[in-house]
């Protein structure tokens, strides 16, 4: 259920004020940002788009934290493989 796609906010409309343009890989659509009340939104921010509405502001720091965690896990895995190869020539 619920296809949600990350899009980058590129422009805001003054009238009506709850519309903004998002860009997804060079494809642009106006979306309603009325559900993101109280969020400080600026061009360059990323939002999750679902059926023409921005549902959530995407946290870059949370994304980064997950990627780093996975990166470390990969590194540890590579190290183990290397150690395994050395001990089993």
């Amino acid at each position, binding site marked *: 259920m619920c296809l949600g796609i990350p899009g980058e906010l590129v422009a805001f409309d003054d009238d009506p004020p709850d519309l903004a343009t998002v860009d997804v890989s060079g494809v642009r659509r106006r979306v309603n940002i009325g559900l993101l009340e109280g969020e400080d939104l600026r061009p360059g921010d*990323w939002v*999750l788009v679902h059926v*023409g*509405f921005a549902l959530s502001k*995407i946290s870059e720091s949370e*994304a980064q934290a*997950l990627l780093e965690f996975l990166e470390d896990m*990969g590194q*540890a895995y590579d190290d183990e493989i290397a150690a395994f190869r050395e001990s089993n020539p």
Partner: protein
Amino acid sequence: MRFVDEFRDAGKARALAARIAALCEPGRSYRFMEVCGGHTHTIYKHGIEDFLPESIRLVHGPGCPVCVIPMGRVDDAITIARQPDVIMTSFGDMMRVPGGQGSFFDAKAAGADIRMVYSPLDALKIARAEPGKRVVFMAIGFETTAPSTAMTVLRAAEEGVDNFAVFCNHVMIIPAIKAILDSPDLRLDGFLGPGHVSAVIGCRPYEFIARDHGKPLVCAGFEPLDILSSVHMLLRQLAEGRTQVENQYARVVPWEGNPKALRVIGEVMEPRPYFEWRGLGFISHSALRMKEAYARFDAERIFELPGVRVADPKACQCGEVLKGVLRPWECKVFGTACTPETPIGTCMVSSEGACAAYYAFGRFSRERVREASRT
């Protein structure tokens, strides 16, 4: 960061796969339900099962909103669509879903004006442009989609667009998970929680699953690395003897959800006493209807509906498949009466349904496909 490609990295996937395999206890098998059809889609689109050991089975849950719509509701919608001067609108997903007397596509072929829209706001736009017509939006979807419908109704009320109405079929995920958990023959070891529903409702509503049913749930994102890392988090909980609600998808899902979205749902809609789910039967407080205050936008109040309940054929065993009790091929009608061209039960309706996926992909063992693709 584009929040997509970064989470499709094959190198990181291999490392995760090794961790997952290492966490599996020898001789033990695991069944995890991905509640959400979007997850099922990701799993097939990227071939994620290739990264999981045989001992882990992903069970496809009830989270495909068009699949769980009972046939009688589709018939009701088609009855509305056949009224004079009505334009029926809905998402592309709805077009092929069969009712007791055919699908939207069949009704369209027979002359009804049925149009696909990308957003409920597009349906409102049609209503503004065609004041002489009554424009009805067939609203489907879980809590992810309900706020968009609610916002559109509020907008229609504000602008006084009185030729717009909603045929509300929004459903809620928690009662459905409860119904699955209460089933006596259930055998699940944990849940991948629906990430985009959770962007609205947050993670707190799942706490009873860990607390009362002793099952872990990890709220999962929709990119392939999200799925693998959520499976990893579930296995880690089991290995460490924990059962908790964890949030793998924190970049999108705040623990408390989206308060504005919840507020607009509450403003426009209220829970129904009960609602029928294909495959799961009647579940109390599992769907939303329009509030009295918005009666003038409520297609159920505006139009006379047959409201006939259309039962699935008795041989159809979707309920058991949905709960992970039966595998698709164990159902009596699978592959004979029930095929993707003529789906009899909910699991065959959308290509993400457990049975449709098995029909398309299960014809050959994973090993044989893997073998062929590598050599």
